[in-house]
């Protein structure tokens, strides 16, 4: 789980072009959107592709992302549940 969380952080930093940010700067349990990291709906679409490309998880409805992408931890749990 720890490795998965670390990898996810690295992949998110790369996919969203979060310059100057390191994995340790992101709290795995903090919200990714709005008041947390400050991501928005375009980032959510980036995360959908990230899930498909790195973890083979396909999401058809962009609205499904809201719960899954609450935090890095919820993403990791979802990925584990699909294994």
């Amino acid at each position, binding site marked *: 789980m720890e490795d998965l969380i670390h990898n996810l952080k690295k992949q998110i930093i790369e996919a969203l072009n979060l310059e100057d940010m390191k994995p340790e700067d992101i709290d795995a349990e903090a919200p990714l959107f709005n008041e947390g990291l400050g991501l928005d*709906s375009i980032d959510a679409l980036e995360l959908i592709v990230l899930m498909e490309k790195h973890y083979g998880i396909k999401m058809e409805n962009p609205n499904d992302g809201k719960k899954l992408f609450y935090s890095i931890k919820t993403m990791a749990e979802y990925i584990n549940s699909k294994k």
Partner: protein
Amino acid sequence: MRIFVTGTGVITAIGNNTAENLDSLVKNKSGIGKITLLDTVHRNEFPIGEVKLSDDSIFKLLDIKEPGAYTRTALLGMKAASEAYLQAGNLDKRKYKTALISATTVAGMGKSELYYGKYLHENFSNEYIKTHEAADSTEKIADFLKIKDFITTISTACSSSANAVMFGARLIKAGIVDRALVGGVDSLSKFTLNGFNTLMILDKQLCRPFDNSRAGLNMGEGAGFLVLDSEKTVKTENLHVLAELAGYGNANDAHHQTASSPDGYGPYLAMKAALELSGLNAKDIDYVNVHGTGTPNNDLSEGYALLRLFNGNVPPFSSTKANTGHTLAAAGGIEAVFSVLALQSSLLFPNLNFGEKMNEFDLIPNLNLQKNTIKHVLSNSFGFGGNDTSLIFSKI
């Protein structure tokens, strides 16, 4: 100063000229179907509104004498622009300064995506490198029709050609030119198809504007142009007037890069500005040709904006994007032509593929072709970057 429409030209999935488009609108025809011309992996995935002519056929139809690199964007633009220009009449350009204001978003991408890999990795070059730039199709149209007094190109995403109409009218009012050929063009490309796909706003079924089950747009291609003339030119040259451009307005939603605000504030401001310029009241509007792309976000936002502008009493409205597909930069020009056709033929065009009204409000688009006196039409075009434009056309 009053501005009049003296010519229209259009090419879309439902017809190659104004008459064919009107015929299809009257017969509830949709031009959306399987992808046949575009070479994409999404060929069987998304329905699309292709113009039913190959590049070669348009080239021959136009009887182009000048050799050169003609992209599909340029050809579609030349076809619709020359139709509008010929209808209005080719006045002596020494006497009447003439402008061409065109619009595009895709520009020469159709060729760029075909050759880019070769340009980059091989010792290969051709004349389509220069057609990548957005001005190329405008220059092709200008040179074809020998217009040179003023030429420019606007690119504000899906409101582009509505903005070209607006700018052309302002140029005439400013006395910079006497008449203006205005509109826009976009051809289908893999670039835009894939781009809209990444935004997850393409419907795999036929698009259903303002329907509760709507799930996105269908892409289309085409061009739509108008000739605008001043009152003075119309009188002096005894020109046949098709309609009056009574108002226009542009506003920015300033909410999000691609999405419309939930309350449709930008769209509301654009419609309000157009109305104010025209001197009309909201209740004078007889028909609204809505932007109505069929995406969950647009139709909701536009619906709220309409409810606000019309204070709950929204006049008959319909989206013609279920006929043509969403033609991006060309949409404003094409729908301006449709608005003029509605005024001339006294017809309210139906909104295809509608089944059930949206949960959020009681708005039901016009579902059947209706014969009715129409004096004033409002046409909406909204784009990425919160760019919102509304035009008002009036019967003469």
